């Protein structure tokens, strides 16, 4: 099921996500979808199925699966905790946490419950929970609706965290997440949610824990994730004009990290820039740099550069938000500095 083969159409990431949900629910009656307005009130007799989450990603699903698409109260702690309990007892819940910024209201069920049960209980529990959540800046949604907080979930042992960079991977990663017997956080970056790529129609999975070289190169490695893969690719185009050959690695999984793939590209180029939409402290970018200066030390031909968001809250004003975010231009600058 891992290699997409059949017909593909160009659809936005949001549709690819909905498609994955539809396939998962149709193929397994234990899969349920819960969250604020995921049915958009559509499970009421007088409701419509025109809504479906604040960004309409789950539009229409409630008509197909009327008992398994559950609107919840605005109670993230209750929602997540209930989903963990449901996962522990036989369901396979997919929870929508509207924006990852809201994780502060419901971290405990992830931090101390879902992630720890299997271990604490001596290997006897399974928590097949998926949390879908929107991450990232760029829509002027300001400080409490724009954060990339996946470093929090990636830092918690027992959780897995994935983030697609395109519609096709979104579908495959989400199907893999839902079918995983471990709790998985599935990030939906704002920057790619409404971008389209070719997406195969069939049921397929992108294996969790595998990065992918999305552009081969030899002079410098650009490591991205989610929306920053696009920045890395744009930077690679720009660098090519200077005669610099950049390899672009799409992490796809933030936990577990595909260390082999990172070390392989570093071994090839000796120079590495990691591009992350999150703030710089305690993040994925630091982990990758740390990996390079530990297991990858012998490959290093120069410093490892981190192009990240700024170490401040996400500002509202367009000009500030732009200055806050990483960009292709900053990746180019960092890469040039290494050569």
């Amino acid at each position, binding site marked *: 099921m891992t290699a997409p083969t059949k017909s593909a159409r160009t659809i936005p990431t949001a549709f690819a996500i909905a498609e994955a949900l539809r396939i998962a629910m149709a193929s397994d009656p234990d899969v349920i979808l819960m969250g*604020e*307005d995921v049915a*958009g*009130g*559509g499970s*009421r007799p*007088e*409701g*419509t199925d*025109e*809504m479906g989450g*604040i960004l309409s990603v789950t539009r229409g699903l409630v008509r197909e699966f009327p008992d398994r698409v559950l*609107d*919840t*109260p*605005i*109670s993230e*702690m*209750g929602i997540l905790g209930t989903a963990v309990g449901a996962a522990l007892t036989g369901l396979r819940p997919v929870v929508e946490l509207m924006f990852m*910024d*809201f994780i*502060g*209201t419901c971290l405990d069920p992830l931090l101390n419950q879902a992630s720890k049960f299997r271990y604490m209980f001596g290997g006897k529990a399974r928590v097949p929970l998926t949390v879908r959540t929107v991450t990232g800046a760029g*829509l*002027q*949604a*300001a*400080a*409490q*609706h724009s954060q990339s907080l996946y470093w929090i979930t990636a830092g918690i042992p027992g959780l897995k965290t994935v983030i697609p960079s395109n519609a096709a991977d979104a579908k495959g990663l989400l199907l893999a997440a839902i079918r995983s017997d471990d709790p998985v956080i599935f990030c939906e970056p704002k920057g790619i949610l409404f971008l389209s790529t070719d997406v195969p129609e069939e049921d397929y999975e992108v294996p969790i824990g595998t990065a992918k070289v999305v552009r081969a190169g030899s002079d410098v490695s650009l490591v991205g994730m989610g929306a920053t893969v696009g920045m890395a690719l744009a930077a690679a185009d720009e660098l090519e004009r200077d005669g610099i050959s950049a390899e672009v690695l799409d992490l796809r999984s933030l936990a577990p990290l595909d260390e082999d793939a990172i070390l392989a590209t570093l071994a090839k180029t000796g120079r590495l820039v990691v591009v992350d939409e999150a703030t710089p402290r305690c993040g994925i970018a630091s982990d990758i740099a740390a990996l390079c200066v530990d297991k990858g030390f012998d490959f290093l031909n120069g410093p490892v550069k981190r192009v990240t968001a*700024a*170490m*401040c*809250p996400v*500002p*509202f*004003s*367009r*000009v*500030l938000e*732009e*200055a*806050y975010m990483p960009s292709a231009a900053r990746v180019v600058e960092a890469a040039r500095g290494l050569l």
Partner: protein
Amino acid sequence: MRTMEPTEEILLVAYRTMRTIRSFEEKLVELVTRGKLGGFLHTYIGEEAVAAGVCANLSDDDHVASTHRGHGHCIAKGVDVRGMMAELFGAGSGICKGRGGSMHIADLGRGMLGANGIVGAGIPLATGAALTAKLKKTGGVGVAFFGDGASNQGAFHESLNMAANWKLPAVYVCENNGWGEFTPTEFVVPVADIAERARSYAMHSLIADGMDFFDVYAKSGAAIARARRGEGPTLLECKTYRFAGHYVGDTLVYRNKLEADHWINHRDPLQIFTSRVVGDRLLAVEDLQRIDREVADRIEEAVSAAEAAPLPDPGDLLEDVYVQR
């Protein structure tokens, strides 16, 4: 409960407040349509009597915590609309230097602790303001505005319990507008009146007609007076209605048009107020018309100023993260 009759001055201010909120937000909708504003915007249109009624009982020494739907609370608490408008344009002259945007407008000098993008998060903040007032004996109160949906948050429960235990000078104003995003309140709140939830804390509670300034003013006034007397907190539920969509751009396909039309045509807080003050000869029609004109001018002026204001300097991006660097 002693009913308080608002003075003429209070009524004039109240009308100006409500009209300002209405006109400010009608202008926002227009500006969004013209592609002038970014970000997420939630309008308070239809709920003006709540903010106006409550804040008419407050001074700058009293603190208010607000929500994602915060423009009305800000205006009623005296925040300058020019600064607000500039903020929404992301200008450096914005009340938050363009850093906050609609969901984070604050003005501590006015006792406005900020709009808030996290549903329920303002409730403990107001509780903290009430704790300060109590321990520092300021005579002030802490007021939280929040929605029906927010009453399902743990922060609501924990805060009200603490306030009740500590007899804090706090007033919890639940704006029950019938909806949380696209979900009707009765679908997620199994009690008819959110005020009922006060019983879990042996807390005093009241229900007001949120479309009637006079009722909100009287009931919130009683609750605030009670708090100031040291008799503890109140949960005040104001029954109101969100005239427009959840956010600017919401298609409203999920909502029964007859329901909305009923409220909009028969329960508009500005109309209810006008009929009452004019009918009872409390204010003159000319006063209201003059205020309408002044408000319209003020908002036009705020828009012009905001459009002309320079955007922030990207070089200042890292300023003000900390007091001490």
